[in-house]
C-alpha cells in the first residue's frame, strides 16, 4: 500500500473537484432552504379553503389568488401597527447595543492584559447562553413579587417598586425584552469592535495627540473613519437580528405574547401558525424577508466595496 501523496491529484481531473466538493452543500441548502422558500411563496399566492379539513386531507383545493393575500395583509391596520412597533423596537435596540458595544470595546482596549482576558471570557460566556435560557433568567429577575430587580430598586431611597409588574404595560415589558436582546448582542459587538480598534495605527493616534487633538476629537476624526466599514456591517447585522427577534418575546410572555408585544416575527407566528392560517403567515413571512433582503443589500454592497479597496 503506497499512500498517494497529497497534492498529486493535480492536472485536468482536479479542475472539477471544487465543484464536486461544494455540490453536497449546495444540494443541502437547496433542500432545506430553497424548497421551503418555494413552498412559502406558493402558499402566499393561494387561498386556504376550509382550514383544518383541507389541511388534514389535502382535499380542499388551494386556488391561486394572485396577490390577494398581500392586499389583505397590507391593508390591515394591525399589520402596520406591528411594523411601526418593530421599527421602533429595532432602532432602540440597535442604537443602544452599538453604543454599549463600542464602550466595551474601548474599555477592553485600555485595560491591562489580564483584565481584557477576563472581560473576553465573561463576554464569551454570555455569548454561549442560549436566548431561551437568558429569557427565562431575566423573566425571573424581573418577577414582580420575588424578582431581584424590584428588590434592589426598592432599596433606593424614595423608590417604591415592591410588586411592580413590568409586563402589565407592553412598553415597559418590551423594555425588559430589550435588556435581554442587548445583553445577548453585546459579546459579538464588543469583541468585533475591539478587534477593529486594534487595527487603528497607534502612530496616527499619536500624531493626532501631538497636534493637540482632544480624545473625543481623535476618536471622532481618526478612530471612527478606520472603524467605519466594520461599523456599517455590525449595524446592518444588528438591524437584521433585532428586526427578527422572536425567542425573547415568546418566552417572556409564556408562549402567548399579548397584542401589544407583537413585533413582526411574533405577529407572523400568531397570525399564521398560531391560528392555522398558513397563507396569511406565509405572506407576512415573504414581506418580512423582502424587508430583510433590502437591509442585506447595504451589507453586501459594503462587503463588495471593502473587497475593491483591498
Amino acid at each position, binding site marked *: 500500500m503506497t499512500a498517494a501523496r497529497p497534492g498529486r491529484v493535480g492536472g485536468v481531473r482536479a479542475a472539477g473537484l471544487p465543484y464536486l466538493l461544494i455540490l453536497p452543500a449546495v444540494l443541502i441548502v437547496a433542500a432545506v432552504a430553497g424548497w421551503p422558500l418555494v413552498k412559502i411563496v406558493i402558499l402566499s399566492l393561494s387561498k*386556504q*379553503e*376550509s*382550514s*383544518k*379539513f383541507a*389541511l*388534514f*386531507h389535502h*382535499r380542499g383545493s388551494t386556488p391561486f389568488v394572485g396577490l390577494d393575500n398581500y392586499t389583505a395583509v397590507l391593508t390591515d391596520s394591525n399589520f402596520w401597527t406591528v411594523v411601526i412597533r418593530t421599527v421602533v423596537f429595532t432602532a432602540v435596540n440597535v442604537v443602544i447595543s452599538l453604543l454599549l458595544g463600542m464602550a466595551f470595546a474601548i474599555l477592553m482596549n485600555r485595560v491591562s492584559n489580564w483584565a481584557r482576558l477576563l472581560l473576553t471570557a465573561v463576554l464569551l460566556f454570555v455569548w454561549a447562553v442560549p436566548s431561551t435560557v437568558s429569557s427565562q433568567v431575566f423573566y425571573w429577575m424581573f418577577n*414582580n*413579587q*420575588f424578582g431581584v430587580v424590584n428588590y434592589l430598586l426598592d432599596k433606593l431611597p424614595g423608590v417604591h417598586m*415592591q*410588586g411592580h*409588574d413590568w*409586563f*402589565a*404595560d407592553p412598553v415597559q415589558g418590551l423594555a425588559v425584552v430589550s435588556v435581554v436582546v442587548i445583553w445577548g448582542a453585546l459579546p459579538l459587538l464588543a469583541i468585533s469592535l475591539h478587534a477593529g480598534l486594534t487595527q487603528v495605527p497607534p502612530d496616527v493616534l499619536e500624531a493626532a495627540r501631538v497636534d493637540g487633538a482632544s480624545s473625543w476629537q481623535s476618536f471622532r476624526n481618526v478612530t471612527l473613519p478606520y472603524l467605519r466599514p466594520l461599523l456599517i456591517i455590525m449595524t446592518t447585522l444588528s438591524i437584521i437580528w433585532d428586526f427578527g427577534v422572536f425567542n425573547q418575546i415568546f418566552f417572556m410572555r*409564556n*408562549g*402567548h405574547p*399579548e*397584542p401589544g408585544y407583537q413585533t413582526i416575527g411574533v405577529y407572523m407566528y*400568531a397570525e399564521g*401558525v*398560531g*391560528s*392555522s392560517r398558513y397563507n396569511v403567515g406565509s405572506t407576512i413571512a415573504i414581506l418580512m424577508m423582502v424587508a430583510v433582503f433590502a437591509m442585506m443589500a447595504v451589507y453586501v454592497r459594503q462587503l463588495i466595496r471593502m473587497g475593491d479597496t483591498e
Partner: protein
Amino acid sequence: MKRRALAAILAVATVAALATACSSSKSSGGDDKGLALSTEGKGKTITVWLQGDAKGWQDVVDQANQRFEQETGAKVDLQWQNWQNYTTKLDSTFAGSTGIPDVVELGNTQMASYMAAGAFADLSSLKSKFDNSDTWMKGLLDTTVYSGKQYGIPYYGGVRTVIYRKDMWQAAGITAPPTSLDELFSDLDKLKAAHSSDPNFSAFYMPGQYWYAAMTFVHDAGSTIATEKDGKWTAQLNSAEAQKGLENWKKLATEYSSGGATKNEADQDGVMAKGHVATIFGSGWEMGVVADPKTGDPKLKDQLATFAMPSETAGKFMPSFFGGSDLAVPAKASNQGLGAEWLRIFTDQQSMTALAKYAIPNSSALLDAYQGQSDANKISGQAAQQTWVTPTSPNWANVESGNILQNMLQDIATGKSSIADATKAADEKIDSTLNATG
C-alpha cells in the same frame, strides 16, 4: 392447539378488517365504517400521546400498558405532551402523513374543531365494546360526538373548587366556609387585614389570564360566553349580566390578589406553596402539587381543604366548568385497530376505577368511587353535578388559541381597559372567530 387456530382465524379476520378500514379511511378521509379492535400486535409499536397530567396517575397508565402489551404483543411508545401550543402541534402532525400517533388526548373543548375536520377515526361501531359507555359523563360525551358519530372516548374530567389554607383562615378568625359570594369577600377582608404587613400576600390568588375562573363568574351571573341561533353565534360577554359577573371576578383579581395580573394559572400551585397565598381556585389534584416535596411545600399537606365557589345567590354554588380530556384514534394512524384496543383497556372498568382515586372518571357510575376517596372529592363531586361547557362550535379552539379571553381579562385585571370596553372588543373577535367559514 385449538387456541392457536382461533388466534390465527382472529388474526386473519382483524387483518382483513383493518385492511378495509385503512383503505376506506384513505379514500374517504375518515368516515370509515369498518374499524375493528385489534389484538394482533406482535412486532408492532403503537404511539400514544398523553398529556403530562397523567404522570399524576402513572400507575393507571402502567397497568393499562402492561395488559395491552400482554394481550396484543405490541409495544407502547408513550410520548408525554404539553398543553402549551398543543393544537399547533396537532395541526402540523395531522397535516402530514408520518409520525402520526395511534392514540391522542385532547381537551374536551378542543375536540369539536378536529372532529369537524375529519381528524379522527369513527368509533361508533365499537362504542358498545367500551365499558360504561352508556353512563359516560355528559360534559365529556357531548364533546366526543359530531354529526351523530362517536369520534372520541371520554377520558376524565374535573371541576375547580376553592382550595384554601385552613391554618390561615382559622388564624383570621373564620370558622366555616362561606355560603355566598358576599360572605367570601368579607372573609377575604379579614384575611387581608390579618396579613397587612406582607406586601406579597394574596388572600385569594387570582391570575389575570385565568379565563376558566372568570367565565365561572360570568355563568354565575346568568350569562354565557356565546349563544347560537340558526347556526350563528353571538358573543355575550358585553351583556349586562356577563359584565356583572366580570365585575365580581375583577374585585377578586384586583383587591385580594397580588402579583398575578399578567400571568395565567399554570404556576399558581407553586405560587401558593411559597406561603404568601391563603386561597386559590383550582382542581382537586392541585392540592397534591401544592404539597409536593419537589414542586411545593410538604408542610402544607394537612393544611389544605376545599369548598365549592359560593354563588352570588346565597346558599348556592357557582356552576363549574367541566374541564376534561377525551381520547381519539387519528384518521391517519397506521395502527388504528391496536390504538382503539389500547383505548378500550385504558378506559375500562378496572382502569377507570383506579383513575377515580385521582380525577373524576369518565362514567357517572363511578362517581361514588371518586367521591368516597376524600372530603375534597366529595365537594368536587357535588360541584360536578351543575356544570357549564364552552361553545360547541368547531371554531371554538381558535378562540382559545387566539388568546382572546386571556387578553381581555388581563386588560381588565391590569386596569388597561374598562370591563365595558374590553368585553366589547372581545365580543367582536369571538363573533368573527366562531362564525368564520372556510
